[in-house]
């Protein structure tokens, strides 16, 4: 190599690397777009299943409730959600508290979201869009319409690629996960027994729902 080449060699190499990186990035977009389509399909399928359960011809309140709970059990990532909803208290909680919390929280979620099945009339829902919000994270936008009322915007946050799990539901800008995290934080910090108090309350409330 001549002296001038040596001087500019790093520059060329850097440019080559940058070019290769850009090529790699732009070639990632088709994969992202495919992911968004899959995410939309996942939510669409889930919605259809839920509507089918609620509007089945000989469905009883019990069958509706258990059907919806089964659907939720397989489509929500309870471990991820449980860890997130405890926030900073997850790190300070003992293993015993954590082991007690996750199943109690799962039970509480399932019961609280299906306790009003008798009021779940057929609603219309439509997917209005989706985007990727990070590595293996997607948001799917939907609109849920009840008759004679203006449609409600509900976004589902999903984790995964190919196969997905729901990690949050955002209704008109209000994230249920964020709200619940605030709620649990309050319950933990306002009682000297902390996470134990939360676990007790979850257990007690689940029985009533």
């Amino acid at each position, binding site marked *: 190599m001549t002296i001038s080449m040596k001087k500019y060699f790093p520059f060329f190499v850097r440019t080559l690397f940058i070019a290769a990186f850009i090529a790699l990035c732009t070639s990632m977009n088709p994969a992202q777009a495919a992911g968004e389509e899959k995410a939309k399909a996942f939510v669409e399928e889930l919605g259809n299943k839920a509507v089918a359960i609620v509007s089945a011809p000989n469905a009883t309140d019990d069958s509706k409730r258990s059907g919806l709970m089964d659907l939720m059990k397989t489509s929500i990532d309870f471990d991820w959600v449980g860890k997130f909803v405890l926030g900073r208290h997850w790190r300070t909680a003992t293993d015993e508290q954590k082991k007690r919390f996750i199943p109690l929280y799962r039970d509480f979620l399932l019961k609280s979201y299906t306790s*009003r099945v008798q009021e779940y009339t057929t609603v219309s829902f439509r997917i209005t869009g989706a985007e990727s919000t990070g590595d293996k994270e997607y948001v799917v936008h939907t609109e849920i319409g009840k008759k004679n009322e203006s449609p409600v915007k509900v976004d589902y946050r999903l984790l995964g690629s190919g196969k997905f799990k729901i990690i949050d539901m955002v209704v008109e800008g209000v994230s249920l996960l964020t709200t619940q995290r605030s709620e649990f*934080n309050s319950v933990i910090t306002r009682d000297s027994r902390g996470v134990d108090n939360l676990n007790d309350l979850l257990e007690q409330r689940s029985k009533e729902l």
Partner: protein
Amino acid sequence: MIFTGNNSSKRFIAAAFMSAALALSACAEKNSEPVMYQNGDYDPLEPLNRCIFKFNYVVDGVLIKPLAELYRTVTPKPVQRGVSNFLDNLASPVSVANSAVQGNGDQAFTTLWRFLLNSTLGVGGVFDFAGYYGIHSRSEDLGQTFGRYGVGPGPYLVLPIIGPSNFRDSVGMVGDWFTDPFNYYTTGYWQAGRTGAVGLTKRADNIDLTDEIYRTSLDPYTTFRSGYLQYRKNEIKLRN
């Protein structure tokens, strides 16, 4: 009733107001404890807010919710919708002004157009004529305008009777009152009646939601706070 009743009913109303004032002043002593910043929600007045929250819960349970439930069951659905349309229409001028100040000319014109159409062809706003033809808009208030210009929410506030708010939005509410053309050249009775009607219809609209919150939440105060602050933040972010 307040202004024209006989002496004993006037005395009753006065007594009711005084006991409410006493209950609220009991709340004022509660804020001698240190402040807290909860999970991203700025709530330095939490003890005071919780006290007012409890006060609101009692007043709601005793008076407001029963009235709202009565309204909801007794009034035919079309009449309820007509009342809501009428009240929403009255709120249009303030919305137009705020959309304009936010620099959203399109939204300002759409809201103005809706107001003109509904007030005339919609018979005083009772029929949502414009909405039937697909002309929809978002309502804007001064709190949202402040928010658009970068003003943060400030401390979370629970206002007596009115409920969740924050410092910025409360100031905005006062400003909206002064910029509302319908508060000029109208009588106090009319304004009080309108405020009462708005409160009642809003309460009737959210009965199911608030019932759900009280049924499932482990700490309703925090659920309302978190939900309200997120909702306002989203309203400020969204444009038509």
